[in-house]
């Protein structure tokens, strides 16, 4: 039995700092996706929402909140939360429901309204919560990205300029994307002169937080055929695998790694494990990938993903950027949307936005960002405590 489901429609609300209720962005994106799919809202049998933790109860039950805002019509509902990987988990829930034959058409939607500045932990005195604790000790999100960036410099000889090239590439890609928040082509000088936040990472190499919304309409292949969309882009894999104990990389928000002192335990990071499972599910390999959308929480982290997605051998990602291989027009474009560098992160919407971009690219509808001959796209993102997700789309 085919494990594919069809992507009938995608839609986004532009990213920004709009300050409106998150559900407005969700409804806007959902309506865009319905329009793109060419089906009425009443045909959606399952609403799979990605939650936001910053907007009170309506955010915790985002699937129901957005379904109500679109107009109740008796659809089933679900809400997923996995921090930055929430959107993929919402897609995974919809895919499972469709493949189990329990529904034919589903809406996957995520939207967020974010505060200014650093993301902060939940309030109160809660030393039993590692997220609270690390902020108390002075360890913010950029700390982790900076530790990984420094490792790259030490192990592979990457330079601040290499990380700068990633930012330049992404800022050029996002420049013409109508949904991107930051539309400015940055120069190396501007990047390397921006304020140091967490050495070696500077302000222009760390992603901001944004408001935004993204949605997709997915269906069974049978349904797609019935409405004349047998050639729709397909979701070929959704991987949400966790690491293998003992995880050897210190992951946000933990203060320490697992101990690998027990005999016979070999560590695998979730970043490397995720795409392996996705490739296996889809029955394709890294050599088939035409483009990728990865989580550039920092410009340096984008390079880690090239290696984890097996787009190049470990340690050689910076060389890909230096050669321009991952630019528009390169042999393997990465973050054609502009990535988090141009969007800023709208947590529950971001993983869905990655899939929207792949869909437009595979359909040949990406406008000035369009790459040639796109057949297979892969996404990668990360949640908290060392888990994340990876989605593969194919023509």
């Amino acid at each position, binding site marked *: 039995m085919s494990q594919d489901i069809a992507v009938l429609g995608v839609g986004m609300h532009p990213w920004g700092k709009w300050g409106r209720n998150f559900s407005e962005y969700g409804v806007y994106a959902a309506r865009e996706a319905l329009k793109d799919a060419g089906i009425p809202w009443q045909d959606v049998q399952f609403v799979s929402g990605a939650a936001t933790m910053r907007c009170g109860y309506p955010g915790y039950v985002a699937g129901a909140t957005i379904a109500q805002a679109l107009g109740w019509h008796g659809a089933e509902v679900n809400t997923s939360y996995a921090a930055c990987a929430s959107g993929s988990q919402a897609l995974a829930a919809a895919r499972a429901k469709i493949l189990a034959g329990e529904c034919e058409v589903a809406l996957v939607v995520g939207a967020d309204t974010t505060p200014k*500045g*650093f993301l*902060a*932990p939940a309030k109160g*005195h809660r*030393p039993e919560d590692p997220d*609270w*604790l*690390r*902020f*108390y*000790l*002075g*360890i*913010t999100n*950029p*700390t982790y990205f*900076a*530790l*990984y*960036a*420094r*490792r790259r410099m*030490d192990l592979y000889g990457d330079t601040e300029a290499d990380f700068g090239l990633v930012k330049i590439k992404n800022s050029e890609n996002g420049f013409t994307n109508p949904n991107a928040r930051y539309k400015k082509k940055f120069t190396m000088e501007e990047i390397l002169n921006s*304020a*140091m*936040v*967490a*050495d*070696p*990472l500077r302000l222009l190499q760390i992603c901001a937080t944004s408001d935004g919304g993204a949605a997709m309409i997915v269906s069974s292949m049978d349904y797609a055929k019935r409405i004349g969309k047998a050639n729709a882009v397909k979701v070929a894999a959704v991987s949400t695998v966790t690491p293998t*104990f*003992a995880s*050897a*990389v*210190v992951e946000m928000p933990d*203060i*320490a*790694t*697992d*101990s*690998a*002192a*027990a*005999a*016979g*335990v070999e560590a695998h990071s979730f970043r490397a494990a995720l795409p392996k499972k996705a490739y296996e599910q889809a029955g394709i390999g890294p050599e088939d990938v035409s483009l990728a959308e990865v989580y550039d929480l920092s410009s340096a982290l984008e390079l880690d993903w090239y290696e984890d997605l097996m787009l190049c051998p470990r340690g050689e990602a910076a060389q890909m950027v230096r050669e321009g291989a991952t630019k528009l027009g390169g042999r393997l474009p990465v973050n054609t949307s502009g990535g988090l560098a141009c969007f800023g992160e709208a947590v529950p919407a971001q993983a869905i936005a990655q899939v929207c971009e792949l869909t437009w690219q595979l359909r040949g509808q990406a406008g000035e960002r369009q790459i040639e001959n796109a057949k297979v796209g892969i996404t990668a993102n990360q949640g908290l405590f060392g888990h994340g997700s990876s989605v593969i789309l194919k023509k």
Partner: protein
Amino acid sequence: MSNKPVQAAIEGWFTLDTDTPHLIGACCEQCGTYYFPKTLSFCKNPACDSTTFNEVELSRQGKIWSYTNACYKPPEPFVAEEPFVPYAIAAVELEKEQMIILGQVVKGVGVDQLKVGQTAELVLEALHEDDEAVKVTWKWQPIAQGESA
């Protein structure tokens, strides 16, 4: 320094022995996996179903796995000095325990004085003060090669 009493910023996470402080971890009685912060309920090794642990003092020295700094004031619950003074942060790998532990680096040591692979030692230093006490935490102090015990 103030005359206020010294208290642990986080109760039970480290000894308050000023000369040779230790982080307090746990070691699984069955499989030997270490935990910090200490776990005394269920072992997280998927191959181990133990519920018995010994409280142990972790190694005081390790090698710097990576490092960075905080140039901007973190949000609450961090309590910042005014004006805010940037501080370095190190991820230190303990050899015996085979784990990496994050912590601030002692005051006065910047990223330009740190290197991956360098030895660092655990010390106690003030995290912040409140009305009643100086709250101390563990910090990493890099030590020159050859100086390590």
